[in-house]
């Protein structure tokens, strides 16, 4: 069993490869029905007040938080469902920009999910029941990645569309994402 000694470079390389495999990200290409059924009431509007919510709201985590595959799927769906038609590639046009810090209806994952599901006055259509909920969560993950609210390790180093100015968009995750 001499070849299994730790001074054998092949063993060290093999061990390193094995350790890397622990970090391999899971691709949820077949979402379970449970994650499909998160509808409505995630973020009630009556909690929204100027200056922030009065009562602390329970934090709803995006099931696809920090998942590189789902963020890239969100980017694809953002084009497929023509979100870009109004919001451009995050810069805004007919609709408001999505690269910003102050959101009318809240910028938390649950608020974004709710905005997409229910629609909002002055043009945002209702997408609930029109596109599957897991895809809405993927779009939420992508929109938050535009604002640097997804870890660097999960987002594309270079966007296919506009490049954000790294001086204005800093990574705001501080190691914590939701």
């Amino acid at each position, binding site marked *: 069993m001499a070849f299994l000694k730790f001074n054998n470079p092949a063993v060290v390389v093999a061990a390193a490869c094995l350790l890397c495999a622990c970090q391999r990200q899971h691709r949820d290409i*077949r979402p379970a029905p449970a994650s499909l059924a998160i509808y409505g009431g995630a973020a009630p509007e009556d909690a929204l007040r100027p200056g922030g919510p009065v009562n602390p709201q329970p934090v709803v985590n995006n099931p696809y938080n920090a998942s590189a595959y789902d963020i890239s799927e969100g980017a694809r769906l953002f084009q497929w469902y023509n979100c870009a038609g109004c919001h451009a590639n995050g810069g805004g046009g007919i609709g408001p920009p999505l690269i910003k810090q102050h959101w009318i209806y809240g910028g938390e994952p649950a608020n974004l999910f709710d905005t997409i599901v229910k629609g909002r006055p002055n043009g945002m259509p209702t997408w609930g029941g029109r596109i599957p909920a897991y895809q809405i969560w993927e779009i939420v993950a992508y929109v938050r990645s535009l604002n640097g609210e997804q870890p660097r390790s999960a987002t594309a180093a270079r966007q296919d569309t506009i490049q954000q100015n790294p001086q204005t968009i800093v990574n705001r995750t501080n190691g914590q994402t939701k």
Partner: protein
Amino acid sequence: MMRLLPRFTCLALSLLLSACITNKQSAIDPAGAQADRISTLWWSFFWLLGTIFIIVMIMTVLTLTRRRRGFEQEPLAQRHKASDETEHRLRRTITACTITSIVILFVLIFASVGTGRSNAEFHTAPNQLTIQVTGTQWWWQIQYMNSDATRNLATANEIHIPVGRPVHIVGVSNDVIHSFWVPNLNGKRDLIPSRVTDEWIEADHPGAFRGQCAEFCGLQHAHMAIWVIAEPEDRFQAWFRNQLQPAVAPSTPDLQQGQQVFLNHECIFCHQIRGTTAGGQSAPDLTHFGSRRGIAANTLPNTKGNLAGWILDPQSIKPGNHMATVEVSSTDLHPLIDYLESLK
């Protein structure tokens, strides 16, 4: 010898069987001028290189088995010292072989480049058909181009062409590099994002020719097939006229319910059925879905059972594909399938 007999029988039988398979995806079963050239090139390579291989093998065996006369009697010191005459003969032989090899290689290069050039020649036949093929993860978007915009036709995963008319394939891609390859008709042509590539095909007899993406393009690259169906001119025209029509209106209550299921589900955000409000552009056009041979880029034959499986759980058939998992209730499923299959 008796021990090997069953193996030889098996081999001979399988060779015979493979010869029986006709009309399959094969570059040496040409169905058009372009594929003819490729096939001729292939067989000339095969016979020329096969002959050379056999000559080299015979020479090697001869060299290994022939015993040099008087070899054993030569003293060790003289073994490597060739006579002037031997040296001369050796030099002549090597020079001749080198020159022959260079000549043969040049002949092969010219034959190969010549075939490529004649296949890539830009045709301008007045009656030629122009079809834009867009490679998409993981299906083929087909658009028949026409100067008259009302005769532009969108379909997917199946091309019908008239026999004896040159067809200009305009290749583009939506996402990554794909490659259009129908071996019975022509060689591979890459479809590259933000570029346009051209290829010509021309079938000389009717038939159905299978093609396949030939450039690795992601998870479901292996399940990205296309059929090219060559038909006589009149049948092609009939097919084309039918395809230009909007989808048939549902005639029975069952089909009407099926249409409502389609229109009230997520389907319409990606799929188009001309003649209804479904106008999605990011997935295959389903206006004449029932007339097509296969589903899911010809992964499965187009049957009701396969369609049910595909709608309910597309990710189990083609893991990673872009068809969304949609919840369809059991009472809605059958009308939906009946409706889709009625779209002839």
